[in-house]
């Protein structure tokens, strides 16, 4: 509990200029944090912190702020858990501050709210999130959390991610910082193995983690803790004893793994579990990083087995996808990770969006897609022309691009479907294949743009 007594706000500047983050190469200021008034989309730091921490289903998530900050957002994170107790990921807690709290401080209310949460829901920890209003009025959530921890013996962790400090990405880093400062290293594990790893940035969205964790376990690689999918507070507190940190598709948490390397000597690697190729590469990379010859040999055997199994189940789809071309309009690392999955299915990816990608993502997209592919920097205005030029059969994008597909009479798949279903790991590729097949064979995209009977 000693560590819990020392609590202070993260250094925003330091998080913004993360040296290991690709976004920051070649920039003087922190480019991750410059929202333009009237031309900004995407969530705030609080949103990012929620995304990062809400998957801890054994911890309560208490938002100290008004209803905008949680009203439409709770119970929306599809991050399942195997925690046998009440699923607190899907339980909304908010102090719902009123004028009185703004004028006279909401600290007393917050303290009482913490009491209520711990008394009625017995969480393993309480994450207390500040918001713009309570940050501005200066409620001392550090002190309230410290006193709450002392009063109940349950860690109360302040998360200083009010929305105005930046975008989702920064909020995710702040969440990592809070866990690093207040939880990691506060407990010693009962046993350790040479193959203990932490999965950082794996939120188990739609059960993605469960698509590959059993394979790691089969190899004797033990997932000591996850940040934060299907996570447990008790295990994240022992995360400092892992032998390797694996970042899963989350650049924003590089600060966390870099600091864990500095503080605890844990090396880190970055992985993606989208598609067959990436899943195989990632599992092998983990084995290689753990550096055991026998483990590596067994890993190669497992990969061969899984790939052979998958190839066989994919045979019926091969005919459907043969000769099909796709345009991909999505952001960040998805620009290449989904592309890789599509290629595994035998679909040619003729264009992808690199609008929000880092330099490394762009290079990777180029490497995956080849010299002839189009890297779209302004996909919204480019994609219709690109579809014409390439003769693409399928557009994978967010809902806003649906009309482009209909106008071009080609099949459309909402890439955000993966928020409802998992496309991760070997088995996820089958799910993706089925969804794409259904899209390609669905008559709706041609029918819906049919000329109305009264139009000549």
């Amino acid at each position, binding site marked *: 509990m000693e560590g819990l007594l020392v609590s202070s706000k993260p250094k925003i500047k330091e998080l913004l200029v993360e040296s290991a983050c690709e976004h920051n190469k070649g920039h003087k200021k922190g480019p991750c944090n410059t929202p333009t008034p009237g*031309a900004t989309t995407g969530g705030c730091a609080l949103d990012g912190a929620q995304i990062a921490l809400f998957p801890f289903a054994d911890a309560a998530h208490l938002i100290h702020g008004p209803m905008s900050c949680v009203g439409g957002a709770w119970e929306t994170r599809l991050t399942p858990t195997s925690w046998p107790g009440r699923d607190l990921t899907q339980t909304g807690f*908010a102090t719902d*501050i009123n004028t009185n709290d703004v004028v006279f401080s909401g600290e007393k209310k917050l303290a*009482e709210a913490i009491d209520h949460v711990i008394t009625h829901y017995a969480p393993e920890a309480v994450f207390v999130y500040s918001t713009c209003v309570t940050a501005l009025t200066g409620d001392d959530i550090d002190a309230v959390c410290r006193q709450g921890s002392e009063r109940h013996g349950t860690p109360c962790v302040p998360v200083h991610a009010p929305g105005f*400090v930046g975008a989702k990405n920064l909020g995710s880093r702040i969440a990592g910082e809070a866990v690093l400062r207040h939880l990691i290293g506060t407990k010693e594990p009962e046993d350790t193995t040479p193959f203990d790893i932490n999965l950082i940035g794996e939120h188990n969205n739609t059960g993605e983690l469960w698509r590959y964790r059993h394979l790691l376990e089969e190899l004797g690689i033990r997932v000591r803790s996850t940040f934060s999918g299907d996570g447990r507070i008790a295990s994240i507190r022992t995360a400092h004893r892992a032998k390797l940190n694996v970042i899963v598709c989350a650049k924003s948490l590089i600060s966390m793994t870099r600091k864990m390397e500095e503080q605890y000597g844990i090396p880190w690697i970055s992985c993606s579990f989208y598609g067959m190729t990436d899943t195989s590469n990632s599992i092998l990379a983990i084995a290689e990083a753990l550096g055991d010859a026998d483990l590596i040999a067994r890993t190669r055997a497992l990969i061969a087995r899984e790939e052979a199994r998958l190839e066989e189940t994919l045979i019926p789809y091969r005919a459907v996808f043969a000769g099909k071309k796709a345009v991909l309009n999505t952001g960040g690392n998805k620009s290449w990770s989904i592309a890789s999955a599509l290629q595994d299915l035998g679909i040619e990816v003729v264009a992808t969006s690199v609008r929000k990608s880092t330099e490394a993502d762009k290079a990777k997209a180029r490497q995956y897609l080849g010299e002839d592919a189009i890297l779209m920097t302004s996909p919204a205005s480019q994609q219709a022309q690109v579809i014409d030029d390439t003769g693409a059969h399928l557009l994978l994008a967010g*809902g806003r691009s649906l009309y482009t597909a209909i106008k071009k009479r080609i099949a459309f798949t909402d890439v955000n479907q993966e928020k409802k279903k998992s496309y991760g790991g070997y088995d996820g590729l089958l799910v993706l294949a089925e969804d794409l097949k259904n899209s390609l064979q669905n008559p709706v995209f041609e029918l819906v743009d049919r000329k109305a009977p009264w139009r000549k």
Partner: protein
Amino acid sequence: MAEVRRKTGKPLQVNPHKLSQPMGATLAFLGVDRCMPLMHGAQGCASFTKVMFTRHFCEPIALQTTAVTDVTAVLDGGDYSITESIKNIGDKVSPALIGVHTTGLTETKGDDLRGVASKIEAPLVYVNTPDYQGGLESGWTLTVQALIEQLTEPCERTDARKVVLVPHVSMQPIEVEKLREFIEAFGFEVVAVPDLSSSLDNHLGEKQASLSGGGVTVAELEGLADAGTVVTVGASVKPVGATLQKKNPAIRHRHFAHVSGLVGTDELVAWLLETSARDTPPAVVERWRKRLQDAMLDSHFSIGQTRFLLVAEPDHLAAMAASLREVGGKVALAIATVDSPVLGAIEADRVIVGDLEDAEQLCDDYDIIIGNFHTEALAHRVGKRAVMRGFPNYEEIGSALKNDVLYEGGAYFLFDIANAAERMREAEVHHARERIKQQGAAA
């Protein structure tokens, strides 16, 4: 009448269904044609709101943010961030109106919205909607009042045929349309303010979400004050009547708490007949009344033996409770998001301002839940059945086209509820039989 508890008595909300005032303001602006709602706050305030309405309506939503940062929060009084936003919006689209609404953040730092707005040339309406006050209903109403106060030109003559219709926030787009057409069928010309029926009614549009794709036009808003009557539906929008009357004291104000069920619709029809000097309603109205009468008789057996929990905005509670009571439904508990003058008039055993934790604790009191998508998980936890109504509904598609009002919608509403109640009872019978079988097998 009902036992009413107007305060939660808790230091927090657990599993809240309450939504914020700026969210109500955004939705109201989305009912104005070619409008860009501009939320004055941190980017997350707008993002959370946009995501919520996008998922509820299954439509892209036009909404921008002034993206206040920690630096502008301290150094700027809104002059920079609002002016800059309007310039940047103008670079991409040409809105007929920009709807600036504040949040807790910008109210706490004390921006002088009115002062900033007075210096801006672009067509703009501003409204103060801190999210530490009120809720979805008040944000909607304040915005409607701001639209009228700032856009409507004063007028001295009235056109008896013209009706301004102000629906409460929980009326879905198709319900606004049905009500507008219903009044029009009596020979009136109706302007709905706001009008979600042509903007968020799930129609396929080309320019997706660059601006609101329909709604009441700015020209119509400017010319509201020659209406003969302003009709407000729902206690939350009642004050709008007086707001419009300030522009023209000759306008008559007719208020309805709701337009649901047989009695509620009868009251509207009686008034429409009187005002239009007609003896009989249009034939289609008569026909739907007969269908509703039949639906009431067909559904009364099922609904009459069912105890309900309603979870919604106050005006929505009043409307649904009235419909259910007409066929003997026992509204055991109604949980409102916020306090409202209408709470005392809701036909329920108990009315409280509260959250879904309250609902869970009182789960012995009811069989069927009617509420937003959060009540689905609640129903699973407490072993009940839920029917989705209200904001937000992420569980189902088609919310915008779900009609519960007037004779017509009233019939569909009763069918929906009665069928849900029957399915629940059938499931109970099935489980009981399975248990008996298992006991038989074990013996």
